[in-house]
């Protein structure tokens, strides 16, 4: 990336770790055969994939056989939710999620609602947390499927997956967790966590883009109906030629993460503290989310500042607005509105997200640039009533 950019958007995507990269190079030169082929070249490829499954299984503490490769968390979420809810539909059609989930979750629920499922959207508190009793109260006899994300992509809030999952287990409800922002970044032990389905994507933790996985617990009643159809690959759950080098890269990213989560977290916490301390005195500033959330994300709103101009004035810093990045006219983030922020607060939200390569100097620079930008835009603005 060009020298004069300061990248603080690691929650959107991360660069590939050089070791991941090296592994992918190695594999793409040597193991290019189709892993479905029984000949020697195919078997070599098959072994490479087996090793990657072990690496990812190691990170999550699960058996490699529980992992299905996909093109990313969007596909994993779709497969888990559409596939899981449909698989259980004969038992009941009530399904539960939250408004603060990623679009790759909420849009699938909207689609299922059209298909005849009955959706309950449970509310978060003002920090974005789902209280277990609030959650339990939303469940019904015909509830068969629940999806709650691990780490929120806008605010970094971490849900109490253990408590929520325990409630689901008790009632034999299929429990899906969107782990896109969590895997490789916070410790996750699926051998002890009551999670049935977990989505992940490589490019959020220094792995390649275009590859993800869905963990499917090996327990009775825990299955998904496929959403793509074709060859018999991956036990007919997900067809298509497996992209060996991407899978090897994801495996390597998992292995690297497994060895460094604590150090990573300490580094991110320090960065977030420096950044927050550098801007917290600004008049009208407020933190979106939970101070105890994932430290890689700092989401702040500030009174009476237009968000797009703020982001623009922050250049060369690359951060994200709180709003959905895909709409052309920036809309206030639906996630922040769900947390009770006003439209005005929500539209000014900036998500800074730091990563392994981020330095203290970069966040200090960012804090200074943020202070200047706010001051300049405030000076430029008319008084509320002229």
């Amino acid at each position, binding site marked *: 990336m060009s020298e004069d950019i300061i990248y603080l958007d690691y929650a959107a995507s991360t660069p590939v770790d050089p070791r991941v990269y090296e592994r992918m190079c190695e594999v793409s030169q040597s193991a290019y055969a189709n892993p479905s082929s029984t000949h020697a070249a195919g078997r070599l490829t098959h072994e490479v994939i087996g090793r990657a499954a072990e690496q990812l299984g190691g990170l999550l503490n699960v058996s490699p056989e529980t992992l299905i490769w996909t093109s990313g968390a969007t596909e994993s979420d779709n497969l888990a939710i559409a596939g899981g809810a449909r698989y259980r539909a004969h038992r009941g059609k009530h399904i539960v999620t939250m408004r603060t989930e990623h679009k790759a979750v909420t849009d699938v629920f909207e689609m299922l609602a059209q298909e005849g499922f009955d959706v309950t959207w449970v509310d978060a508190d003002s920090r974005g947390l789902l209280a277990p009793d609030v959650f339990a109260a939303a469940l019904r006899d015909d509830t068969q499927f629940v999806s709650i994300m691990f780490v929120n992509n806008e605010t970094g809030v971490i849900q109490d997956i253990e408590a929520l999952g325990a409630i689901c287990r008790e009632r034999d409800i299929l429990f899906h967790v969107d782990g896109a922002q969590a895997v490789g970044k916070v410790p996750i032990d699926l051998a002890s966590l009551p999670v049935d389905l977990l989505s992940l994507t490589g490019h959020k933790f220094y792995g390649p883009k275009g590859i993800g996985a869905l963990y499917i617990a090996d327990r009775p009643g825990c299955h998904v109906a496929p959403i793509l159809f074709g060859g018999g690959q991956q036990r007919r759950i997900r067809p298509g030629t497996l992209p060996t080098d991407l899978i090897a890269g994801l495996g390597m990213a998992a292995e690297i993460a497994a060895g460094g989560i604590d150090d990573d977290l300490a580094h991110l916490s320090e960065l977030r503290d420096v950044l927050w301390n550098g801007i917290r005195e600004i008049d009208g500033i407020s933190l979106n989310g939970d101070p105890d959330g994932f430290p890689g994300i700092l989401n702040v709103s500030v009174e009476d500042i237009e968000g797009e101009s703020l982001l623009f004035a922050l250049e060369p810093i690359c951060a994200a607005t709180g709003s959905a990045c895909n709409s052309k006219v920036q809309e206030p983030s639906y996630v922040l509105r769900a947390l009770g922020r006003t439209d005005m607060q929500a539209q000014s939200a900036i998500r800074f997200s730091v990563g392994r390569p981020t330095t203290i100097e970069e966040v200090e620079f960012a804090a200074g640039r943020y202070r200047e930008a706010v001051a300049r835009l405030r000076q430029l603005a008319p008084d509320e009533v*002229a």
Partner: protein
Amino acid sequence: MSADPYSARVRDLFAAPAHAGDAAGGEAVYVADQDVRLRLTATAADGTIEVLRFRAWGCPHVIAATEAACAALEGRPVTDLENYTAADVMQNLPVPVEKTGRILVIEDAVRSLGQRFRDRT
């Protein structure tokens, strides 16, 4: 996906809006609509706009377009204010179509400033 929404001209105008501020003692208008809040102040002499200044709350295109409008109108007859159109702005400044509504707010503000001058005379 996002192409660069900001042209070099938008960048320049946003970075250094020479006409930001207030024209002391001048006529003033304020409009607030469409995610835009705009205050224009101007002084005129002999039917000519002498100083035209703005304060704006809005997206980069709004700030840039307002700056461009002020720069273009200073030194012009005050009657030009009432005939100012959004098309004038957008001709010299690429503004995404979905922001056309905001540019119309600028047009409104400039025109009502023109009205003020007329009412005064």
